[in-house]
Each structure stands twice: as C-alpha cells, then as structure tokens.
C-alpha cells in the first residue's frame, strides 16, 4: 500500500446517554460518504460505530460521561480509507478475556448478549482495541 496522507479529520464529543449513538452513526455516514465508500459499506460503518458507542455507554463507567470519536479519512489524492476511533476514559477491560459468542450456546444461555465486538470485527476491515486503566479506544477501519 502506498503512503497515505490524512485528508480530513473530524472529531465528535458525545454525552454517554440514550440515543446519542444515532448522532455518531449519522456523522459517520457523512464522513463515509465523503470517503467515497459504497452505500453498503456506509451501512456497515454505521452499524459498527453504533455498537462501539453502545459498549462505551454500557460498560465504560467513565466519570466524564463523554465519548470521543475521531473520524480520519486517508488517501493519496482521492479518499481511500476511513478509520474511526471511539474512545472512552472509563474502567477498561481485557479484550482477550472476552469470550467469543457462539449462537448454539447463546440460544440456551440466560444471557443472550455479548455480540457487539464480534459484529464490529465482522463488518469492518481492521479493528484494534486498546484498553487499560485510562479507558478504551476501539479503532476500526474500512477501505474503498
């Protein structure tokens, strides 16, 4: 892959509160359109961003109750790649310790939840999760 420059960088600060994931999802749509992604790709980005926001709302217990999203469009001349970082300053978690959900098990289990990270990984090209005592950053990218 050739060296890519940052063409655009947009930041969004959201309160961790019900429905605010829809604001992240709409902002993601606009940046993804700018990045030249297809309609289906844009839809996948929306869904992945929604999941990452809901995770932070539900699990981060961040004292500042603020979620910070950074949308970065990379490209040489034209936009080629969109990366979205979703960052909370909450308690963090150990991604390796999260059990991979399996439908056979979930169908019988009391807790049917636990799909967010699997969906994000399935819908985006690359996903990295950094998490520790100062919070969690999920970075997810998709190329045209």
């Amino acid at each position: 892959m050739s060296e890519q420059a940052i063409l655009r960088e947009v930041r969004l600060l959201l309160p961790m509160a019900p429905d605010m994931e829809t604001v992240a999802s709409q902002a993601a749509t606009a940046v993804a359109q700018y990045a030249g992604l297809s309609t289906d790709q844009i839809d996948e980005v929306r869904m992945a961003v929604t999941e990452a926001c809901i995770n932070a709302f539900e699990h981060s217990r961040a004292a500042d109750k603020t979620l910070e999203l950074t949308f970065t469009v990379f490209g040489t001349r034209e936009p080629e790649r969109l990366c979205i970082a979703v960052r909370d300053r909450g308690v963090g978690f150990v991604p390796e310790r999260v059990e991979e959900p399996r439908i056979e098990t979930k169908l019988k289990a009391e807790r049917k939840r636990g799909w967010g990270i699997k969906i994000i990984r399935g819908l985006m090209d690359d996903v990295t999760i950094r998490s520790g005592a100062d919070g969690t950053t999920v970075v997810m990218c998709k190329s045209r």
Partner: protein
Amino acid sequence: MTEGLKLTVDRRSGLAVLYTDGYINNQGGEEIARAAYELIDQGYTRLLLNLHGTKIINSIGISILIEIIERMLQIDGRLGFCALTPTIEKTFHIMGLAQYAGIFPDEAAAIAALAPGP
C-alpha cells in the same frame, strides 16, 4: 425522544407477519418480543418478521430476537426474516443466526417456505 419502533401485525391462516418500521434497539426488540409471545400464546407457531422498514438495528435488539428464536425452537415453531438490508443480513450471518431462522429475500418466498404444508 428519538422515534420509537412502529410495529404492525398481520394475522394470516397458520402464520403471522410482523412488520417493523424504525430502529430495533432494546425498546424496539422488546416490543417485537411482546407481540411475538402474544401471537405464540394465541397458537401461532410460524412467525415472519418483515424488516423492510428497518434500516438500523443494534446487538441488544438482536439479542432479544435470539430469545424469540429460542422460544420458537422450544415449541417446534419457525421464525423467518425477510426484506433485510444487506448489512443486517450480513450481521445475522456473522452471528450464525441464519442456521436457526430462515432468511428470505421477500415475503412471498418466506411464506412459501414457512407456511405449514396442505
């Protein structure tokens, strides 16, 4: 304040179709589950969820759909989905849901496959 899910139920012979309109989040999922359990209590064992009006869904909503699938398996019934956006269909495949609930392109195909034989 964001618009809630709108749900319409169409009872047919041997099968009921649930039409969703809007975001399937926890509230939306719970609304679908309430309607589905009511239909099951009324004796329906074949349900079709027509998602034509739903462009977004989240994993909490889907988890509630999994509860409905579990209940269907218990009563030997069948739940089908039709008119999914490509992303929702992809998500159902990522999760393996497609093995336990039929996914159909449109209502006609779904009804042909789900309806009890003559």
